[in-house]
């Protein structure tokens, strides 16, 4: 009986797949952070760009994930099958919350504070790095948190185009109609999402605790 329990039966493979899953998510969220935060900052400086940038990111978000994965198969260079197109797709999904939260976080800084900084002779860079970004940190981190949780969920579909991760169990379980297999993928993925959410929430709280 106990040998049938999915966690024990697939234990070692669950660990490997979890590792793959985490790598997919870490790389894609990492890229999304490195691209999304500067992009979010840029559109606070060039307001004319904010609508098109947020619009495109929004449209990407609405594309069904399975369709996006499928579409990437035919794209040269970054597309095809395997981990690379999966990372591309996950990055695209993670971008919107990060760009949007960076933008709203910075534009949400009290105008009086911004003006006090400018009035005292801060340059735009000083204002950005010493005032606006620190004050927007909570909101930006909330965006990273959402992006990470989304990526962990969507990464379970990545095996559809030949990438690894916990989704491998799910797809295998569907094809052989085995619920144990599906659970072996779904339960760890859900747990990772919960843990990531808690951990990032805790970091967010620590970083913004000072002025509460």
């Amino acid at each position, binding site marked *: 009986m106990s040998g049938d329990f999915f966690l024990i039966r697939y234990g070692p493979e669950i660990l490997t797949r979890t590792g793959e899953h985490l790598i997919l998510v870490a790389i894609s969220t990492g890229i999304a952070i490195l691209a999304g935060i500067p992009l979010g900052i840029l559109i606070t400086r060039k307001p004319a760009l904010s609508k098109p940038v947020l619009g495109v990111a929004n449209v990407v978000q609405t594309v069904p994930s399975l369709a996006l994965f499928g579409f990437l198969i035919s794209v040269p260079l970054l597309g095809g099958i395997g981990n690379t197109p999966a990372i591309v797709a996950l990055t695209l999904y993670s971008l919107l919350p990060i760009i949007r939260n960076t933008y709203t976080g910075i534009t949400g800084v*009290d105008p*009086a*504070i911004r*003006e*006090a*900084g*400018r*009035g*005292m*002779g*801060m*340059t735009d860079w*000083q204002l950005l790095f010493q*005032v606006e970004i*620190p*004050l927007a940190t909570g909101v930006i981190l909330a965006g990273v948190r959402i992006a990470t949780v989304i990526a962990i969920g969507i990464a379970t579909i990545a095996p559809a185009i030949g990438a690894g991760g916990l989704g491998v169990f799910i797809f295998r379980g569907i094809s052989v109609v085995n619920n144990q297999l599906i659970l072996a993928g779904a339960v760890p993925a859900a747990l990772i999402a919960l843990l990531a959410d808690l951990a990032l929430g805790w970091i967010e709280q620590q970083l913004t605790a*000072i*002025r509460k």
Partner: protein
Amino acid sequence: MPETSEIAVEFRDASYRVHNRNLVSDLNLNVRLGEVLVLLGRSGSGKTTTMKLINRLHAPTAGQVLVGGKPTTEWNPIALRRRIGYVIQETGLFPHFTVERNVGLVPALSGCKPKQIKTRVYDLLNLVGLDAEQFAGRYPHQLSGGQRQRVGVARALAADPPVLLMDEPFGALDPITRLEIQKEFRRLQQELGKTVIFVTHDIQEAFLLASRIGLMHEGRMVALETPAEFMRSQHPEAQAFLQCLRSLEQARDGL
């Protein structure tokens, strides 16, 4: 005509126009060194806009504003602002900086040594009546409104600027704290001899602090007089403000 060296700030036919509307029009005035010029007017009369023309948060769309004899448009805006202290309502303190970092901000931006900054900050906090040891490490949200305002004044004085701009700095305080801090500020100003341009809509505050009152109405300066002259002014807007004082006295006499 006083000599140029006695003039801290000069407006020459300065106007500021946005969205096809003049926020201030044809301002002509001299702010003398060491005086407290109070810009008095209703909300939307152009007081704050006038003030922002001085540190070039706005650039005049017509005419010129001269600081230290040089048009603001020819100044490097950063250099200009660092030699002009700026105090606004309490929201102007950075919530994520301690009192010490808030006050030391401009010296730090100008590249002073941390040790010098610390000495300066402690001197300034004591100057504005706050115990430096006690307050340096606190955050703005841990202070009362009056304490925050004192920190704001200390911050504006940090780089020892010859000119201070103050935009309704004491507006959010309760009347008792306000009077206390106004009196202290007057003493401080006389002691330090700073040139101050002070925006308010409170006529009592104007009388208490001003060497001259500049009355603003619909984007124009309709009177620029000493408080004594202002008391006798026949301008309808000045009359309206004086009426506020009189109705207070009448209410008192009626009791």
